[in-house]
């Protein structure tokens, strides 16, 4: 090396070291003030309460309050959008659930790009799905349902909370694989969808365990199958769709994330702290009560889930004719 070049390298190294010191010091001091956790669903629901439990745990390790702020609406996209719009300084994190990242972007013009705008802290839970009928219905198994639907075309209706939801997709995939036909009725939310089935206005309700397990236990509803890759742990006798010969599954995830560009040391700290939360008995207890199976995924794993889901759901959404490019306006 020439003398000039080596001097240059020396100077550059010195500069990097000098500049690095304050940066290193400030990251060690993180967090210096309260952190905001944006939850994209309403207070009291599964996503909200599990996030609050995480926040509570994190406060202990981080030494600063983690304040939950609900920013609800538009199927979870408003909250996710707020995370994408936040400053990547580590003081704003939030719940980055699966469907606002993998389904909604195909349907609406959203101000965030799910593939590039987020750094994930971890995936922590799974949402499960499955069709239920009323307890007093003569339909006892999935096969009964399929037979019934084939004999009574146009009669079978199911309730779901939205077109681009795994709840709906599950029923559609099932229809494709079995050849039985049914029609979906959109309701505003889970309670309305469940009430519609209980009251006899629709035949099937397709919801999360949280919404239906109490009724299953009371005998008012009966689960016919699990749409996921595993059975429902609360109703272990009911097989998955795959076990019955229909090769598909739908699932959705709960995760925490922040804006991309958040400094790596801060992300590492957050990832470590929240990973520890997965062992916190209080948090696990809340997950259990919310009927959300704990499912830790590393940030890289979750990123992959989102990427795969993005592609996979695009196909389904196009088939349904819901893709934003297919709409007139």
């Amino acid at each position: 090396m020439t003398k000039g070049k080596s001097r240059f390298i020396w100077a550059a190294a010195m500069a990097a070291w000098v500049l690095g010191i304050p940066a290193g010091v400030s990251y060690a001091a993180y967090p210096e003030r309260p952190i905001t956790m944006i939850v994209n669903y309403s207070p009291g629901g599964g996503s909200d309460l599990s996030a609050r439990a995480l926040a509570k745990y994190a406060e202990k390790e981080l030494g600063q309050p983690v304040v939950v702020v609900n920013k609800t609406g538009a199927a979870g996209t408003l909250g996710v959008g707020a995370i994408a719009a936040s400053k990547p300084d580590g003081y704003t994190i939030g719940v980055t659930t699966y469907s606002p990242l993998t389904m909604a972007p195909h349907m609406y013009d959203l101000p965030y790009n799910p593939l590039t705008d987020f750094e994930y802290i971890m995936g922590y839970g799974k949402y499960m799905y499955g069709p239920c009928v009323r307890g007093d219905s003569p339909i006892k198994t999935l096969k009964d349902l399929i037979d019934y639907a084939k004999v009574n075309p146009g009669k079978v209706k199911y309730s779901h909370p939205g077109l681009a939801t795994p709840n709906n997709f599950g029923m559609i995939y099932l229809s494709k694989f079995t050849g039985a036909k049914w029609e979906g009725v959109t309701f505003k939310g889970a309670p309305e969808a469940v009430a519609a089935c209980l009251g006899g206005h629709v035949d099937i309700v397709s919801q999360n365990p949280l919404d239906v397990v109490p009724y299953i236990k009371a005998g008012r509803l009966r689960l016919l199958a699990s749409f996921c890759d595993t059975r429902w742990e609360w109703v272990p006798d009911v097989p998955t769709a795959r076990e019955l010969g229909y090769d598909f599954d739908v699932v959705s995830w709960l995760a925490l994330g922040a804006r991309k560009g958040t400094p790596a040391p801060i992300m590492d700290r957050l990832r470590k702290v929240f990973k520890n939360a997965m062992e916190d008995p209080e948090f696990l207890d809340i997950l259990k009560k919310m009927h959300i199976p704990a499912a830790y995924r590393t940030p890289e794993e979750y990123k992959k889930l989102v990427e795969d889901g993005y592609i996979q759901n695009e196909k389904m959404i196009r088939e349904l004719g819901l893709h934003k490019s297919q709409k007139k306006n």
Partner: protein
Amino acid sequence: MDLLGSILYGFSVALTPDNLLYCFIGVFIGTLVGVLPGIGPVGAMSLLLPTTFHVSPLGAIIMLAGIYYGAMYGGSTTSILVNIPGEAASVVTCLDGYQMAMQGRAGPALGIAAFGSFIAGTISIIGLMLVAPPLAEAALKFGPPEYFTLMALGMTILIYLASGSIPKALMMAVLGIILASVGIDATSGKQRFTFGILELNDGIGLVPLVMGLFGISEVLLNLEQKVKREILKTRLKGLLPSRLDWRDSAKPIARGSILGFFLGILPGGGALISSFVSYGIEKRLSKDPSKFGKGAIEGVAGPESANNAATGGAFIPLLTLGIPANVVMAMLLGALLIHGLQPGPMLMKNHPDLFWGVVTSMYVGNAMLLVLNLPLIGMWVQVLRIPYRTLFPLILLFCLIGAYAVNYSQTDVLIMIIFGVIGYLMKKFQYEGAPLVLAYVLGPMLEDALRQSLVISNGSFAIFVTRPISAIGMVLAIFLVFSPLLPWVTKKRPVFKEE
């Protein structure tokens, strides 16, 4: 356990020092949050939710429930004093309550609101105790066609809401439907009138809309008056409702309570709709409908009772079936879950202490609220004495913060301001806000119910008349729409009013 035994048992758990304290904290915070415009019980409940983790389940529910019905008490305060609904459900109280305040009768208005709320709360709790399970099952029978009919019935009330020009009121109603359509349409997945703004995907929020339309516009109108409101403050005609007021309010309170109770049971029904319907009914049944909108105490007594009774009714689907009738109930459901309780059909059976404890503490809470609110009337009335030039910036500030706090959205605050201007212009050009709000709330439910019903019936409209409940409702709606015309048809126009 027989009924009396259960009630006594409930009181025995509700009146423990711990639970009494939680009850008090809940109703106190609820009142505070109800008075402050914008911020509602949901926000306060979500704040307190974590602190309830370590409290007994009963204590937690008592406190959270207290926040909810406490907010209903408090919400009417600002409606009456400054025409700003503290809670969206208190919008209707603005119509006559504010007028009463302008006439120096803020005290009686606040008083009858408090008393009416208490009586209504008591009645709804009695209903809750006696007929909860069968009512809940009956409520399940209300499917999309029944909801459609119910909403259609509600729409007919619109006609009675208008104090002035009917065409203009109908225009406002139609506008309300259009405004309510802004956002993502759930059934088709399409964005309607959102013009690419993300926040509008969720629609125009009810709270900012109502705060702007009624509250901000009123401030603007007051500001431009050169003759100040000093006049009003010297004519305070007593702080409590007079005997005459009680006589006029008795039946509205009774009707409002029963109406609110039943409407509150239906998921999606709720306090707002009950108060509107109560107002319409009172006006319809009144001997002198023209006094509505100008400070008729019936216009405060009925709706205020209705919205409180509705909060009681809303507990029924939650406690007996585990179905939350509104967002607040959904939060309570979450709280129950956290405490390891399974809300659902088994709750009453497995945890009678919870059910009866909560129900009896609601009674205790209502009593506390009456005791809390009555002395405060004197204080609130003093607020009106503050010179407007000092008062209005504070009103505006509280509205701004309140609107922001609902969903942490600047867009919401912007919407509030824009509707403040619209409301101001509307008042100038003599268009009324109440029909707009009612249609705004009913419209989406009407549309959803229609589309859901048509999917279920495979496109047949017969579903609305073949199902018994729906058919009855339809007949009633047609009757209500055409009954004002009856005198013309039968030429039996009453020439003199009976006395």
